[in-house]
């Protein structure tokens, strides 16, 4: 069984093609991706026929268009993020609508690696007698669940390929294999597709600068896609100036400044990172409406989505942060120990070389432009492995020229100290007083 025709991450198509024709194909793909958020079913119906005389040609053209777009995405990070988001959504749709059962298994093997995927029957055969008793129970559970789609089937993927499913125990783990029904793997499958696409985009960089004609076309398309690469308005506009602390990224702790600038650059953050930044922006005084506007304006994947539509869909998550939806809980910013294990802390999650680069550039303070000496940064980075909160504390003086006597145990603690030294005021609310207590305890 071969991969489905619509699957774009196949061996490179025949590139012996007129450059202008190629450009046309890329442009068709762009239009298709732009239409997708508005009416995904319509896009799939119109563009991905099941029966057609020229079916091969149609899909070959789509793959060629997608291939050129990868080259374009390699030149611009925001464009790359937009392409990954859009192609990811299209993949999800096509996988659902245009893939037969056999093809689904081939897609699994292609994205997770054939050595990491096993059919359930084969897996059952490999397990020993004693373990099979439990598998029989699982099998029974699978078949007895009411309302299960007829197209659903059991499949096994190696645990290293689906960490999210392992974390959330979404499958049965046996001897390193996550056994579950195909539907529950879909989120991980989409993520694997997006990761592979990102790798392909990185590889595509090597192809630039070889052929002048192709480079010119790439540049042309990139310019035409400028609207995807720009944010609609600048966040630090007069609207917020001097009013709220969120317009002063110089008081943000390193974790938040990293996420903030990463989102500025790419327009895309993963779920936990979005939550972390969202909680923080809320606690330093950003209103729910401001935050809705902020995410709407900066994200790359909602270009054709109206603000009303955005409020209805993604807006739910943002209102949830403020305790206006769901369980109606007013969430706090997670403390550093939680961030280190479940969210994003640069001292824990960044590669040391990237971390040093990031720390040496991160001097947004308005009062002075400091350049921390590299040797000092190396010392901090070497300590970060043992105690990230200590590393954070030791980094503080390089930004604000003030020594802290307490470890940084909470992002708002950093923001409070920083706002003090930057001459900005942060309101003393409950969360801050709890941070004080924590910091004192820590001391």
């Amino acid at each position: 069984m071969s991969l489905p025709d619509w699957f774009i991450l196949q061996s490179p198509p025949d590139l012996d093609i007129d450059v202008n024709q190629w450009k046309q194909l890329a442009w068709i793909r762009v239009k298709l991706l732009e239409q997708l958020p508005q009416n995904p079913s319509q896009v799939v119906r119109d563009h991905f026929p099941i029966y057609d005389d020229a079916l091969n040609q149609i899909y070959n053209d789509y793959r060629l268009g997608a291939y050129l777009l990868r080259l374009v995405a390699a030149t611009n990070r925001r464009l790359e993020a937009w392409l990954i988001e859009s192609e990811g959504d299209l993949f999800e749709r096509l996988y659902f609508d245009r893939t037969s059962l056999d093809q689904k298994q081939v897609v699994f093997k292609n994205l997770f690696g054939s050595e990491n995927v096993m059919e359930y029957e084969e897996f059952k055969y490999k397990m020993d007698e004693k373990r099979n008793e439990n598998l029989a129970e699982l099998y029974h559970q699978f078949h007895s669940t009411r309302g299960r789609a007829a197209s659903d089937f059991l499949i096994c993927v190696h645990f290293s390929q689906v960490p999210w499913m392992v974390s959330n125990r979404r499958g049965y783990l046996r001897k390193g294999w996550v056994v579950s029904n195909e539907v529950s793997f879909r989120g991980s499958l989409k993520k694997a597709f997006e990761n592979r696409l990102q790798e392909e985009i990185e590889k595509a960089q090597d192809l630039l600068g070889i052929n002048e004609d192709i480079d010119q076309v790439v540049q042309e398309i990139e310019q035409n896609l400028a609207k995807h690469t720009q944010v609609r308005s600048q966040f630090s506009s007069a609207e917020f100036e001097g009013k709220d602390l969120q317009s002063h990224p110089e008081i943000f702790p390193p974790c938040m400044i990293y996420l903030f600038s990463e989102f500025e650059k790419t327009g895309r953050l993963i779920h936990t990172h979005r939550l972390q930044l969202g909680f923080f922006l809320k606690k330093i005084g950003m209103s729910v409406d401001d935050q809705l506007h902020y995410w709407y304006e900066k994200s790359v994947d909602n270009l054709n989505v109206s603000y009303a539509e955005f409020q209805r869909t993604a807006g739910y998550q943002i209102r949830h942060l403020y305790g206006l939806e769901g369980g109606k809980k007013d969430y706090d910013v997670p403390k550093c120990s939680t961030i280190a294990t479940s969210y994003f802390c640069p001292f824990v999650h960044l590669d040391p070389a990237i971390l040093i680069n990031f720390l040496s550039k991160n001097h947004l303070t308005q009062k002075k432009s400091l350049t921390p000496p590299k040797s000092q940064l190396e010392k901090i980075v070497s300590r970060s492995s043992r105690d990230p909160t200590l590393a954070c504390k030791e980094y503080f003086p390089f930004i604000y020229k003030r020594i802290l006597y307490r470890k940084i145990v909470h992002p708002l603690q950093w923001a409070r100290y920083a706002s003090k030294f930057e001459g900005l005021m942060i309101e003393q609310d409950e969360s801050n007083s709890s941070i004080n207590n924590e910091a004192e305890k820590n001391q």
Partner: protein
Amino acid sequence: MNQAQQRTALRDYYSATFDIDGLAAIINFSNFSTREFGFATLGGKFFRNISFENPKTLIDFLVDRTPYHAYVGAVYNEPPSRETPIHTLEWVGHELVFDIDLNEYDTVRQFVCDCQGADQVCQRCWQLVNLAVHIIDETLRLDFGMKDITWIFSGRRGVHGWVTDDLGFSLDQEQRMSIIDYLSVIHGEAEKARIQDRMKLKYDFRYRIEHTVFKYFLKNVRRKDLIDLGFSSSVASNILKQLDHQEGQIDENLLRNFNLRVAKINKYDEILRRWVPRIDHKVSIDLRRLLRLPNSIHGKTGKTARILDPSNIFFFNPDEEPSIFSS
């Protein structure tokens, strides 16, 4: 022992007793020269970014410098040194390690033993570590299919579980975190920890956790513990009598009976909360972490971070471990 005597004891240990072959069973010597090592002196000075050409040069270093603490880290594409520190090198791999330390249990140890103060360790509270080893070892083997797991005494108040399979060596941070999440049954800080919704634990794993925890609980239970949980005096006596009758062997009937009684007084989660494994997450997910060198000496206690015998692991008593500083 004064400092000079301690140094002599360390030198004697590293020159005569240090088991380099035991170390070879845990860390792969084929990439020895590109592995990072770290050391701490008596004054608390800490050095890392050190590598050795071969095991012999490591032993020479240990004998010559007699560090109070010796650590081993990840493997890189080139030998780490002061000129080429680890952040300039490409990470190649690090064994998956689980750190179980009694520090993590400080808030619940009062329900298990009578130890006063954090530094004290007794055979009873060591049962918490034994239980964690039992559950983690079994889960890694059965659920994750890992085969080579070695448990090492940390030299003070805990154990380190080294997974030396090739797969564990190359796992990235997200994959390591997923294993920790899978093994973690409690959420939140120690004082406010709550047990995860039981239905979210998959059948096999849930059975393993509950079965093992209650078995350990019953093996170590005291009258005081039962009364504290809310059992009446007569029920407590009855349970203890049954346990006495079975001479420490906990059979399925007794376990089921006890579970029903606990469910009646709604203390099921309370017992789980006190006994379930608590792993130091940071140690497992940090890819560049330096960990105590197996078979080296813990500078504070003088005890050897020795490899525990798998057949005898549950009878290990940290208090009985000899210290090279005590003679």
